[in-house]
């Protein structure tokens, strides 16, 4: 399988990437690691006229620690996140989840920015950054803006990014409570999560329980009012709209969500 013809442009800076995308118009796509975009292009589900390769913009792969937050460049690969000492110490949820994505070859190429901008409901990192209350920084022709993680995912493969706008950085506040857990259920190695759960302190977010990642608000409310893990987890499927598919009917995903949230909350509380 070969992608439909396109024009390849390589950017060496964020400004150049935004300029190249603006020149190319609405049918331009940014290429980071390519491990979300390229499979879609090979299946001809995505047919961009211009591909702007941002993979060599070194300034976008930095992981930094500020006073109250961490900054993660959009080009940080899953492998880089998984091996980062800074993240292992300060954001183990992100490091751990990144280390469970795909396989080593995929982690060597795939990036956090690519995964978030692609917005696959079965992807792990969107739910992780929801649980971490991240802010996403995007640069477009009209400047830089910040988007809260909760406002970023609009639908299936749809985000708040405008055409020509490039996700450049993810800012994550230092967690106030130490407990965390990441759980995902797959049938085979390297499969996408049938359901996944990311927990950081009182925040609980779900993978693949609807067309976007979603905070398990019923669980969070139950925890806030003093319920224990099992009782709170019983509310995991509230407000969700998981798909029926080859992996099972909606009820199966709802059941998995309750089981995985219970495990995640227990593991998280054991880590506090």
């Amino acid at each position: 399988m070969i992608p439909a013809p396109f024009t390849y442009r390589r950017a060496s800076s964020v400004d150049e990437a935004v300029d190249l995308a603006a020149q190319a118009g609405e049918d331009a796509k940014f290429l980071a690691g390519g491990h979300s975009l390229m499979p879609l292009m090979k299946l001809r589900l995505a047919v961009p006229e211009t591909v702007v390769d941002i993979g060599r913009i070194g300034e976008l792969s930095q992981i930094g620690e500020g006073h109250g937050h961490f900054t993660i460049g959009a080009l940080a690969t899953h492998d880089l996140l998984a091996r980062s000492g800074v993240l292992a110490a300060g954001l183990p949820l992100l490091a751990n989840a990144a280390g469970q994505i795909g396989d080593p070859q995929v982690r060597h190429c795939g990036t956090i920015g690519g995964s978030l901008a692609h917005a696959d409901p079965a992807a792990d990192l969107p739910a992780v950054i929801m649980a971490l209350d991240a802010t996403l920084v995007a640069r477009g022709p009209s400047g830089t803006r910040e988007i809260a993680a909760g406002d970023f995912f609009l639908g299936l493969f749809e985000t708040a990014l405008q055409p020509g706008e490039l996700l450049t950085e993810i800012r994550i506040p230092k967690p106030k409570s130490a407990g965390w857990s990441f759980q995902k259920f797959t049938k085979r190695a390297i499969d996408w999560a049938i359901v996944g759960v990311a927990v950081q302190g009182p925040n609980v977010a779900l993978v693949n329980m609807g067309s976007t990642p979603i905070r398990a608000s019923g669980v969070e409310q139950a925890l806030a009012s003093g319920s224990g893990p099992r009782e709170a987890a019983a509310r995991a499927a509230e407000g969700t709209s998981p798909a029926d598919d080859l992996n099972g009917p909606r009820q199966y995903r709802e059941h998995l969500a309750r089981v995985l949230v219970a495990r995640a909350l227990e593991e998280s509380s054991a880590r506090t």
Partner: protein
Amino acid sequence: MKVTVTVNGSEVAAEVADRTLLVHFLRDVAGLTATNVGCDTSSCGACTVLLDGRSVKSCTVLAAQADGRAVTTVEGLSGGADELHPVQRAFRAEHGLQCGFCTPGMVMASVSLLAENPSPTEDEVRSALEGNLCRCTGYHNIVRAVLAAASERRPR
């Protein structure tokens, strides 16, 4: 566009279509056909090569992304035709292959693993090879081969 890739230590330059995948560049332009196209969907790992020393699935990387970088295929692992890399030697000694189709990818994924982790446990080997499928299901001997290669390379 013109793409120049250092393949197994030698520069390979060619004018190719922008959409050319790295695996096709290696097979059709560089003439190195050990790297196989298996699933073509970044699942099976048969097309695994090293890009700047780290394993990637070359069916999901554009040749343009490898422009100016170094690629190692299984042909480039050893010095000559009569010489085997320790990982290749271990695959032969431990019968780490049956039909052989997945073998180039398995070997390259194993070389990448041992570069990152020279003394993996059996569990770590199995996890590191999760992106490489063997349709003959010959996994036990493949894992044995990687462990044997690791112990051979360890200073005694």
